[in-house]
């Protein structure tokens, strides 16, 4: 039954005019006896934001890390721009749930860290970092340390670091879950603008149904272990209506309800 539902969802969600930036093909992942992912396949359209949504422990982080090249799948493969992933690469950048900032380094050095690892000269990388620090709204904090910043500001640093390496694919693991509700809403709006203006592919993990529907071009619903994609949803009409109107759009509300209906039985 789940199978037929899966097929139906796939059929409806695969228009021919989307080119995939990232393809996950038949991915399985076992942690010892724990089967986290089984035969999961999913396409991520270029220039769009795809959310991974599902109950806790269903393997969202695992899938994201496999795409990042931080974990090896037990079976299957990931392709990014036609190249099979064997490890981390300059075409992907990761935004961490717990920010993963160097506590001993300034905002400037943290943002420039990705470029530093790529061997970019100091003056050049600081120039690039300064640009992205300004872009995420942290001008004036270049010489602050992470412990002097609020949670929201720290995640902006994490975001600026990921943006500054100019990777085509941004992988975000619950990037907003550790910030407060108001900052989170601001981040969601900023993220929409980012998706629109940067020609990058975003893969976004979240626990929040509302957040997923609000920011995504495509939502992939994962079911519990061993998990696979059970449904793909592509909101169509409200994306163009402006950030202020999305939350009261009927389609937005319908999709939120529909997702909750399919997930509620998996939440204890």
């Amino acid at each position, binding site marked *: 039954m789940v199978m037929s539902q899966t097929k139906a969802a796939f059929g409806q969600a695969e228009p021919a005019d989307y080119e995939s930036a990232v393809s996950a093909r038949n991915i399985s992942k076992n942690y010892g006896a724990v089967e986290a992912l089984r035969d999961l396949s999913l396409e991520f359209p270029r220039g769009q934001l795809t959310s991974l949504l599902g109950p806790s422990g269903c393997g969202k982080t695992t899938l994201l890390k496999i795409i990042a090249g931080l974990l090896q799948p037990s079976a299957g493969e990931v392709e990014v721009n036609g190249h099979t992933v064997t490890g981390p690469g300059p075409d992907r950048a*990761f935004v961490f749930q717990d920010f993963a900032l160097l506590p001993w380094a300034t905002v400037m050095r943290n943002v420039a*860290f990705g470029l530093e690892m790529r061997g970019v000269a100091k003056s050049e990388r600081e120039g690039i970092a300064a640009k992205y620090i300004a872009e995420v709204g942290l001008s004036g904090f270049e010489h602050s340390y992470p412990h002097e910043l609020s949670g929201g500001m720290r995640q902006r640093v994490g975001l600026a670091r990921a943006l500054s390496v100019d990777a085509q694919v941004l992988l975000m693991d619950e990037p907003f879950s550790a910030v407060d509700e108001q900052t989170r809403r601001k981040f969601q709006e900023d993220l929409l603008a980012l998706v629109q203006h940067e020609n990058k592919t975003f893969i976004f993990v979240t626990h929040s149904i509302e957040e997923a529907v609000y920011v995504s071009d495509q939502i992939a619903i994962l079911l519990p272990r061993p998990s696979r994609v059970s449904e793909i949803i592509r909101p169509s009409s409200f994306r163009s209506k402006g950030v202020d109107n999305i939350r009261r759009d009927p389609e937005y509300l319908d999709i939120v309800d529909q997702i909750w209906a399919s997930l509620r039985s998996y939440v204890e």
Partner: protein
Amino acid sequence: MIVFGYRLPGMSSLIVWGLLWELVGRLKLTFFVPPLSEVVATLYTVIGTAAFQKALAETAYAFLAGVGFAIIIGIPVGILMGKNRLLDELLLPWVNVFLSAPLTALVPVLMVLFGFGMKAIIITTTLFGIWIIILNSRAGVKQINRSLVEMAHSFGASPVDAFFKIYFWAALPEILGGVRIGIIRAVKGVIIGQLLISIVGFGALFELYSANFLMGHFWAVLIVLFALAFTISEFLAYLERRVSYYAAKR
């Protein structure tokens, strides 16, 4: 300490103990304890003597060399043990054994192996200090935030980059804690080594003083050594506090 509503500067209680010492000395209860004033007077004359300065220089040399080896070898070994399971299982039992072993008992063996001189003293000093430095560096790496390591990996950091730019800094508060305790142990090592080998540095000096019943000299040198050890330890504690601000926030 607060007395009669006045806040006294730190360690003013030492004055009381100093007075007590003076009193016991004046009462001439034992030749072993001359009055503090006499010891202090001796201190000034002793510090000027060539024998003392030679002993101090030799001790400083042995101490710095011993501590230097302990740090240069101990930190990387500890970090590598924290990173590498195999190395850890290979070395950890030995580190723990040596950490708790009565190392003083090893000094005679070292004398046989490395001769009655500077070399044996330096090795003794290193042996006293190195184990806790290894253990603390290892502990510092063990508690490192995994996502920092993943972050560096995801941005393409080489193993060398990860070592110097992530592991070392993330473990720095623990490493410095280990270095501080290691250095305090090394102070013991360098003195014990000299006492047992007793032909160089303060070992020779103590030998000379006690053979001639120069108790004032003996205490004077002891005060100098205690003060030096205490100053070193306080200075390291100060350095440690300067980096520990981020220890809680990793």
